[in-house]
């Protein structure tokens, strides 16, 4: 029994890392611009499909590097053309807009690549288990965790060491003052959005190796991202990271004791957090409005 639990905790960390990657992108956009990006799953799916299409030309590794950037460029364009107009308005409108975009993305991917699942090839070296005992630690999953870790570290470095990052952090606290200090807020929001979408694209490429690749791949991962943000703390990136990991581990443990609650557990956690500490585990005060 203990072995089962240990396995599942490890596995839960892997799954949680993936949730965290998705949720971080969403959180970045939410914190600075106040936009709930319903299309986040759609961008993720696009990232995966773009990687799939690139593979014959660039191979697996090339696609892995290039696809998130291409997705991010698309994100920059979407922000510039559509979302930018909605900042002054009620958050309702950006929600509806991204909602409509999610529809368009899903239908678009179905139109271009077909409703059928498409096979995504991962190089053989990655798809072998690293040990017979810990068979679920395949090369690919470990690679994925490593990549997520690198991405998270890179994100935090950008946020803490670069000027852009500093401005983003300042902006999440008080955008008006940042603007008054002469920072071009438009560009800032644009780049921040692109950064968030980059993470979504990366998550997509990673997911494609793990799951079947079909147009609805994005929609199933949106909810855990939301819950990760709520549990981890609104307005806090470390909180989102923590939230994602917690959800992953909780799901893993639930599978051992109460398999039917594997999904429910994250909603229960959310309910408990809201009851006891509405701003989330690492959330900041005054962030709720």
């Amino acid at each position, binding site marked *: 029994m203990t072995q089962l639990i240990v396995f599942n905790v490890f596995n839960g960390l892997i799954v949680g890392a993936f949730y965290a990657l998705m949720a971080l992108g969403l959180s970045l956009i939410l914190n600075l611009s106040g936009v709930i990006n319903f299309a986040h799953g759609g961008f993720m799916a696009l990232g995966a499909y773009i990687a799939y299409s690139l593979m014959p030309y660039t191979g697996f590794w090339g696609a892995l590097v290039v696809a998130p950037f291409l997705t991010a460029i698309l994100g920059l364009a979407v922000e510039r053309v559509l979302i930018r107009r*909605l900042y002054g308005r009620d*958050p309702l409108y950006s929600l509806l807009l991204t909602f409509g975009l999610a529809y368009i993305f899903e*239908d678009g991917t179905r139109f271009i690549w077909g409703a059928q699942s498409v096979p995504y090839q991962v190089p053989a070296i990655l798809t072998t288990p690293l040990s017979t005992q810990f068979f679920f630690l395949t090369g690919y999953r470990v690679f994925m965790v490593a990549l997520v870790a690198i991405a998270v570290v890179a994100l935090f470095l950008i946020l803490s060491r670069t000027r852009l990052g500093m401005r983003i952090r300042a902006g999440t606290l008080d955008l008006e003052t940042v603007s008054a200090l002469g920072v071009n807020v438009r560009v800032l929001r644009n780049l921040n959005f692109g950064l968030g979408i980059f993470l979504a694209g990366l998550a997509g490429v990673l997911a494609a190796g793990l799951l079947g690749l079909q147009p609805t791949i994005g929609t199933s991962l949106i909810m855990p991202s939301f819950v990760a*943000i709520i549990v981890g703390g609104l307005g806090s990136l470390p909180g989102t990271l923590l939230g994602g990991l917690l959800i992953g581990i909780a799901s893993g443990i639930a599978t051992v004791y109460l398999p039917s609650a594997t999904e429910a557990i994250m909603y229960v956690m959310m309910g408990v957090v809201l009851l006891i500490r509405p701003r989330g585990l690492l959330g900041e005060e005054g962030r*709720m409005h």
Partner: protein
Amino acid sequence: MSGTDRRLTLAGIWIVLLAMPFWLPYLGGYTELGSRVLVMALAAMALNFLLGFTGVLSFGHAAYFGLGAYAAGMTIKYLLPSSIAGILMGVIVGTLAAMLIGALIVKLRGVYFAMVTIAFGQVFYFITFRWNDVTGGDDGLTGWQRQPIDLGFTKIDILGNDKAFYYLVLVFFALATGAMALILRSPFGRTLLAIRENERRARFLGIPIERHIWLSFVISCFFASLAGALYALLNNFTDPRALRWDLSGNFVIMAVLGGMRSFWGPLIGAAIFVVLQDYVSSQTENWMSFIGLFFVLVVLFFPRGILGIFRRRTAS
């Protein structure tokens, strides 16, 4: 709008609705479509009570809609083969859930409130999905039908007769909108408007904001679950997708499309959206792109909705 104008509009709306089963087929519609429009309109208006009149964004109203649907269906299937009992249970269950959840989330605002409503919507979706033995899970709740209504002196066959069912829905619609209008016109309703306009100022005036928002939320979900119960009766069927966030999104777009600041706006929005979706999905497989595009265009160019355009014209 002046008093007579208002009364004329009201009369006009009701005449159109009363006669719908008769003029709709000439436009290529069918009575069931009309019933569907009414049910969706009720749900959208219920949402608008919270969204347009209190200024609080809920993106998870499908949860209460769906709860009403399931409660109604399960009542008829397991407890009592009576349509009225089904509707009653639907409303009770939905409202109770709203009271509970409302209490949990009332401290949040803005996007965070919206996110949490979405998440709770998913919780209920998930429960109906997984609790197979009771709810039928993914296969939905089948094996039951709306029962004829026994009024003692006569039996109204709402099962076989589409028109009879349409009028039943219309009766509930009338009662519900009447109640909503009364509430909005009362001092409580005025307070809600004040909260919408400027929450901080309202707080400074000593108004207990959280309690008002909670009440508004509960009332809104009360009507939404009524719509859901009627929806279940309409289809003789309900399934977990009646609880999903895309349906919630549809309600919001109906309210926005028709005009959030107007009482009847969501009715127009619902009519357009239901008919549009019905039409577009028959014409092309890629209807999702068109509906998505529609959302985008409404948000960018018609944020005040259709009635918003007219209102602006009369105002200027």
